[in-house]
């Protein structure tokens, strides 16, 4: 993965619609504006003045009026509200953005800044299928890393069975349950070597024996007591 290490506001709450220089196409600009309106609303603001201040340059104003024509949002006095079509579209963008943030920060351990930057790009290009897969992979998280709600998708309301996350930290496995190790995420190579020498490596079936007073895991006939951080780093698929 290539990163562009530019400086920008690391926030998913309120962002200017044109925070990305790369968001040049009209579709992207529309996405950004919808996202912006959604974010404003979450913060209890729906003032048209805010929107106009942000959208000060002529091109943005063009897009805004285009969006109004398209029936994505409407104004009522000095208030702005999303129409059904816009609401739907915004909801998807927000969902993609926040899910991506979680994925990047929790699983790939990117910094908040990097995660935000990448999420800004990915929110425009993820297909609905991939979005649902990410959502399922993460176990249908209700909120983004900043605590903002993630709008639920189709996958989240599917029957109870499929709502169970596919991959989760070993720590989330109940005592006595087993899982197959998918990957081990750690910044300490020595820890990886030690664990894999004990047979704790991707592909192995691992059993969570107990969590307290110290986590104890079992692979085959090998029982190992480890630090709590280590069971957080081992990601398993329940079997």
């Amino acid at each position: 993965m290539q990163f562009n290490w530019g400086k920008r506001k690391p926030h998913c709450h309120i962002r200017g619609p044109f925070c990305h220089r790369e968001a040049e196409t009209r579709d992207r600009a529309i996405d950004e504006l919808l996202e912006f309106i959604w974010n404003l609303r979450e913060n209890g603001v729906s003032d048209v003045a805010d929107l106009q201040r942000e959208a000060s340059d002529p091109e943005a104003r063009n897009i805004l009026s285009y969006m109004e024509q398209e029936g994505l949002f409407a104004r009522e006095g000095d208030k702005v509200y999303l129409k059904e079509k816009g609401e739907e579209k915004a909801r998807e963008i927000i969902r993609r953005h926040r899910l991506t943030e979680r994925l990047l920060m929790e699983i790939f351990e990117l910094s908040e800044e990097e995660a935000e930057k990448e999420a800004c790009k990915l929110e425009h290009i993820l297909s609905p299928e991939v979005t649902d897969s990410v959502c399922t992979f993460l176990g249908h998280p209700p909120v983004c890393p900043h605590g903002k709600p993630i709008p639920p998708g189709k996958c989240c309301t599917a029957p109870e069975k499929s709502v169970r996350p596919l991959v989760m930290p070993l720590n989330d496995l109940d005592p006595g349950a087993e899982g197959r190790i998918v990957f081990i995420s750690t910044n300490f190579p020595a820890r990886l070597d030690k664990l894999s020498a004990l047979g704790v490596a991707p592909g192995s079936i691992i059993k969570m024996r107990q969590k307290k007073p110290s986590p104890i895991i079992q692979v085959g006939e090998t029982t190992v007591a480890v630090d709590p951080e280590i069971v957080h780093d081992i990601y398993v698929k329940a079997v």
Partner: protein
Amino acid sequence: MRKRGKNRGMESKDFNRKSTKKIILVGNPNVGKSVVFNYLTGKYVVVSNYPGTTVEVSHGTTKWRGKNITVLDTPGVNSLLPTSEDEIVTRNILLNEKDALIVQVADAKNLRRSLLISSQLSEMGLPFLLVLNMEDEARERGIKINYQELYSLTGAKVISTVATQKKNLEKITEELVDLREATLNISYHPALEEAISQIAEFLPEENISPRSIAIMLLSGDKSLKRWLHARLPESRINEIEAIRRSCQAGFDQPISYLINQVRLEKVDEIVRRVTMIKPIKRKRLSTRIGELSVHPFWGVVILIGAVYLLYQVIGVFGAGVAVDFMEETVFGEYINPFFIRWTGRLVPVAWLRDLLVGQYGLLTMAMTYAFALILPIITFFFIAFGLMEDSGYLPRLAVMSNKIFRLIGLNGKAILPMILGLGCATMATLTTRILESKRDRIIVTLLLALGVPCSAQMAVIFGMLSGFSPMMVVLWAGVVGLVLAVVGYLAARYLPGEASDFVLELPPIRLPRIGNILIKTLSRIEWYLKEAVPLFALSTFILFIMDKTGILINIEKGASPLIKGVLGLPVETTQAFLIGFLRRDYGAAGLLALARAHALSAEQILVALVTMTLFVPCLANFLVIVKERGWKIGAAISGFILAVAFTVGGLLNLILKITGFKI
């Protein structure tokens, strides 16, 4: 890869040079290597440090094809790509011991991990005999292994044993002829293979294959640095490092981890093909006990029970009954009078007589201390420790205490030397070797020296405290405990170095074999006598010199302002503190004598006891610290402890005075 003669064992020149021919036992921890070793060597066992390290390696001799040959018991390893000092030592033995007969002892029920090591031995090009031990435990768990299939897949000769019942052990020496190189060779990702062969080209012929060394180097094994520098020019070493770096850049996971994963895959495939598992539903009693011993509630109950039992065996029986008998009866009535009588007759020079049998005499004081005071205690300690070790309880103790030790930045493994410290801090300091990082070892060494009272001292302390209200005990233990926690916390925070990971294998709970415990205890006692007795002699000699030259008296005089002014204690206690440096409990005994004579108030006794407990460890402990950690750290620890002991004692005195607190 180098070709090896198929009949190496048959070549007659190997028989003539019996010193070069060796049997080397390797394997995972807790697979029964030591039992096999004890079987092969009997009682002629020597335990010594591996040169340049603090890791112990046992060696002994056995009869093989009519000749005496050496058997080496290497430290248990999980990988021959070393991640710990133990693993470095084992790897180095394989690297340096030419022409050895290698026996891999393996846990039959844990074939996967065993074969991981087999694959590394095979990679090294070393022929070995695979001994699948604990075949009974595997059977109990419904695991059946197809040995014929295992042989054809790995190329390694395989035998199955139950070492604790001596079943099939005689086969080991029988099968050691005609060893073949195993064929368990694994190929890795093409980019890795490319780098491996590039590096291997640079490497000299060695006892183990250049390919295996290249893999270690590629995995970033830093422990080969010295070896590498002794054999290759700097430029080559840099080239190797460059290859490694550019190879690593192509992968987002550490190379060592990638290699391990491929090995595991290969091993898993073999395991699948050679084992049949019939799941057995019934939980064995030992499994149940094992679970209870790490249970959040029952684990604590068992822990308290175990500590109480330890206290009874070591503290009450060992340090009480056995020491009384040895000191008062054996040495007091027979041995010492005998020495004094005969020295009086045979040695005409007065100072020489004093040196041998005087107040600070080598025979009377040093030998009495070593054999009458310490030997009984550590004998019981070693027996109890061996029982805990062989039953598999020790690592579970570490599990129970991990949380507490994490609070001060250490991990559960630290409890093992701390518990030992309640027996004897000198020995416990030696066992800090089980801790992985240097930082952890220094912290535990410091805490041991600072405030973990040894059993002998504890006996005297409790003797003193018993005459007072329980408040006294609470205050003494509270102050000492608080100081330990604060110092431990600060040391863990400010000492450089990472806290080491807590990754500790829990062996199954087993019923210990008495014979094995006895052999272990005997070899440890032998080791103790070699390590500690010279120290006792030396410290007694130093005291003798100080006494004769008058230095002792001067120190007493010089220290009295500190004792009187800061601690608020009578001048007479100076001597107790000074002797306390020689042996902690003797210092405490000195205080006890003063207390009995009503020379001290209750508050003074509390101040004196706290200071004495925290005070510099005994000379033997000090010398062991210096030996293990070096002069600088030894001096720093002692200086620090001295300061802490007097500061805390002084503060306590001040607080008691200001508040007018009466116990």
